[in-house]
């Protein structure tokens, strides 16, 4: 398959306007501006393009939710790529920043938006600098500013650098952070499409989603929808990392077998090792095992398997690592990043962290695994945002799928710590 986004991505100077224009860059913006707004929006809807940031919500539908009328509306590009395992937007912004800017300009035209922001995580210093330079070039060339390309459509684009907080990747947390506050998520509804940034209607999309828009316009919505499978159209950037021989970003057609990505493209684990578990969509997705390697990699197949495609970050763990080790890292991350606004998440992530620590230090019994699992079920669905769920889902799935191994871990940790063995003490035998 010929890639769309990654086509000749390492061409020297692609991050400059001159090279991007030579390759036909910003032609799609011209084409879109010559069409009525509704027709551009229709193309995006026809393409079936689903959000690439994690939730997989159809972009055309989201843009359609914005109220019509003459109020200030905003577009915010979510470039706060913090989901563990995800690094696709980084490569895209670093190597082809103008593709993103063109996509933003087209989306703004389609939704009648005149003010756009890119919220990039503060740690991406190089990518932020490259985007800043690209935005300045685009302003100078008239692709941004008052009346882009003499169309009378004004558009301003501001790069906003964050300062290191996972929760700012959550759309409402991002909006609060962009307003100069602590990045606490907001209660939904109202959804950002109705009341978002500065209380105005706001369209929020991921970098990859917006960078795909010029390709949708080029191919036409219906033609784009032919790529991939039904309800998961198009190509997807997949970040493969962990115990694989060739980690990196790959552009795939949605719906190909997962095995082809993990083994065919990324080379699979080192020789002599086997896949133990893998996260199909970042550390927030419930884990899959080696039995699931033949699942098609698309939104619906993943949902059917009880997990999610998420941000398209595949983390592979081979059999030299224990499940407990992986769980411990996942839990520590969410306990650190919980913003503290909702009690189930703030307390749930911290207590889960303590419970996992108890297992590691050899003080736990298998009953603690039940407690661990029950805490997770009490977090899911009980918070303003999905950060708590994002810990509860993978942890719950690890307990469910690797229970025998975790029980052995509990026992092994007790042995290491010199805690009396449960078997010898007769523990776990019901008393009545």
């Amino acid at each position: 398959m010929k890639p769309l986004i990654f086509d000749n991505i390492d061409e020297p100077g692609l991050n400059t306007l001159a090279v991007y224009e030579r390759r036909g860059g910003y032609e799609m913006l011209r084409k879109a501006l010559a069409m009525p707004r509704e027709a551009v929006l229709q193309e995006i809807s026809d393409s079936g393009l689903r959000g690439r940031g994690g939730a997989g919500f159809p972009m055309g539908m989201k843009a359609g939710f914005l109220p019509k009328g003459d109020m200030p509306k905003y577009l915010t590009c979510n470039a706060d790529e913090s989901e563990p395992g995800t690094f696709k937007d980084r490569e895209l912004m670093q190597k082809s920043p103008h593709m993103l800017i063109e996509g933003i300009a087209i989306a703004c035209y389609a939704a009648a938006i005149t003010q756009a922001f890119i919220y990039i995580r503060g740690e991406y210093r190089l990518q932020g600098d490259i985007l800043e330079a690209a935005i300045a070039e685009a302003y100078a060339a008239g692709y941004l500013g008052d009346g882009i390309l003499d169309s009378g459509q004004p558009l301003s684009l501001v790069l906003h650098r964050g300062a290191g907080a996972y929760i700012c990747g959550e759309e409402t947390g991002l909006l609060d952070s962009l307003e100069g506050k602590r990045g606490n998520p907001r209660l939904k509804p109202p959804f950002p499409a109705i009341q978002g940034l500065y209380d105005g209607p706001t369209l929020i999309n991921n970098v990859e989603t917006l960078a795909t828009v010029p390709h949708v316009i080029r191919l036409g919505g219906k033609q784009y929808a032919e790529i991939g499978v039904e309800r998961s159209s198009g190509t997807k950037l997949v970040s493969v990392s962990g115990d694989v021989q060739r980690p990196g970003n790959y552009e795939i057609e949605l719906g190909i077998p997962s095995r082809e990505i993990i083994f065919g493209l990324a080379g699979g684990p080192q020789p002599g090792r086997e896949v133990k578990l893998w996260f199909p969509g970042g550390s927030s997705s419930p884990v899959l095992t080696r039995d699931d390697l033949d699942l098609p990699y698309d939104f619906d197949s993943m949902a059917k398997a009880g997990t999610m495609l998420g941000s398209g970050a595949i983390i592979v763990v081979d059999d030299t690592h224990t499940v407990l080790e992986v769980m411990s890292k996942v839990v520590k991350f969410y306990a650190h990043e919980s913003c503290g606004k909702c009690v189930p998440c703030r307390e749930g992530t911290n207590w889960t962290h303590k419970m996992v620590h108890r297992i590691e230090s050899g003080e736990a019994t298998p009953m603690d695994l039940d407690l661990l699992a029950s805490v997770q079920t009490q977090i899911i669905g009980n918070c303003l945002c999905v950060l708590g769920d994002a810990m509860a889902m993978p942890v719950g799935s690890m307990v469910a799928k690797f229970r025998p191994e975790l029980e052995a871990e509990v026992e092994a940790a007790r042995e290491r710590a010199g805690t009396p063995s449960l078997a010898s003490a007769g523990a776990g035998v019901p008393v009545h």
Partner: protein
Amino acid sequence: MSAIDRRPPVPRFGHGSRVPGWDVAVDLAKPPATVPDPATTPVPDELRSEIEQAMGRYPNPRSAAIPALHAAQRHHGWLPPEAIAQVACVMALTPAYLTSVASFYDMFALRPKPRHDVYVCTNITCSLLGADEIHERMIELAGDHPDLNVCSFECLGACDIGPMASVNGEYVGPINLDDCEQIARDLDKGGPVLEHKQLRFRRCADPNANPES
């Protein structure tokens, strides 16, 4: 706290509280801190213009809080109360508000810190690939280098070069234990850090991405 974290334990005060002065009653007669008076709060011109420029970029100037705090941290090296007061003065916000914002984000330092930031990623992928040993080694090295600010960081978004670190914002990886000393030496010299392992030079892994190669 992980076993290798060598930071001193959290100080405890009376009754095990972590908050110094927890048992000292608040002086309710004292008025709360308000927006600092420009007449008594000198702000360096460079910092003032940077903050004002940032405020001009947004429909609501308050959005410039994070860019302004970044600017102040660049200027002072960290965010002492004077820096917060200067930002508060220019933005017409209270220092308490800005402190609440600054304390939310990992990249702002509300305590003095050494000059060079070495963020070692210890999230899932990097730790599967040995980041904990790298972090431990860097902490040891920091013992001899007063300029090294070594912290373990959550996923920095560069799992393809794991285990990795962000050295003063420059992503380097995959790093091994020998590279740790090289990082410290390169920082001493002041040149580029671990140049052959910098992310900026890495090509895309996708075999279909670059047809000519």
